[in-house]
């Protein structure tokens, strides 16, 4: 029995040795993950700002208020459960995005604008 002393490294401390009340892992993972979108004063669009755990939509909005709008970042909050977001696969990036690369004529930079048109 040589391992009387076991050295723990940061992040390696088992829950029963870390002291304090241990929140069981189940309680945490019971709460689904939500994605948070905040509309700032400057823009019309809601921007993705991050994610958080919450038991329901109401709680997700309140958590988002507490976590992401403490410094007056927002005027409106959207939340959506992360499982409802479908994402494109990174390995499909080639077929999805590369075909657009050689089609520069899709950019509106080839048109000569009359001087009267300012805001374009």
């Amino acid at each position, binding site marked *: 029995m040589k391992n009387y002393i076991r050295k723990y490294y940061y992040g390696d401390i088992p829950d029963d040795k870390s002291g304090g009340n241990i929140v069981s892992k189940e309680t945490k993972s019971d709460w689904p993950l939500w994605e948070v979108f905040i509309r700032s004063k400057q823009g019309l669009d809601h921007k993705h700002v991050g994610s958080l*755990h919450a038991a329901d939509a*109401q709680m997700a909005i309140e958590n988002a208020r*507490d976590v992401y709008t403490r410094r007056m970042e927002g005027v409106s909050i959207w939340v959506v459960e992360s499982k409802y977001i479908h994402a494109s696969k990174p390995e499909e990036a080639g077929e999805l995005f590369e075909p657009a690369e050689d089609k520069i004529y899709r950019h509106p930079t080839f048109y000569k604008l009359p001087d009267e048109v300012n805001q374009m």
Partner: protein
Amino acid sequence: MSTLIDYTLHLADNSLILGQRNSEWCGHGPVLEQDIAITNISLDLIGQARNFYQYAASLINQTIKQSNNPVTEDSLAYLRTEREFKNCLLVEQPNGDWGQTILRQFFFSQYQYLLFQQLQHSKDEQLAAIAAKSLKEVSYHLRWSSEWVIRLGDGTEESHSRMLKAIDELWMYTGELFQAAGYELQTAKEGIGVDVSLLKPKWEEKIKEIFSEATLPVPEKVFMQSGGKDGKHTEHLGYILTELQYMQRAYPGNEW
């Protein structure tokens, strides 16, 4: 004037002590999001306390002409003793578990909500302004805490039984909220303060409403503790002040 000072200090002490209590959760909340939520509430309360203390300090400095050593918000918070604090007993009660902290916040926020609704029409412009400003914060505290009471009361067997225990611990401190101290009666007569006894029916009605949704029983008549408003506190306040005032006691006049 001295009743107005006492009344303002009472309002300040309520917010400061509950803010200090809630801040003990900082870094210990059950999940990150709620840790931030409770500390946000804590900061709101300490902000309210500052407003009230600043006002109380200006009133005190008007009455006593001690020009070279004026009273400040800091001296009021950090250099008064236990018996000089006029907060109600409810706010100094220990955090207990999350359920107990939630319930204490719910009882107090419901009370503060009704109180500030009246106080914002006070003849005293300063108190009216502080109440009006704080009311938005308090509305959120009330919404947040009542949702948690429902969630825990109507949650699992474990959370329900913890809420029952919390009610057992805290209910006896709710009666004092509506027993007016001398300075409350006097300021209420002058149209400055609020007659807290009138808030009781509405408060009870709201508690019943949330408790019934949370499947929690409203306790029958129990003996109510009191004394905090007149400086007679439970043993807990001394410990709170020891921690709160440590820096100023150990290093007088220290600033950062």
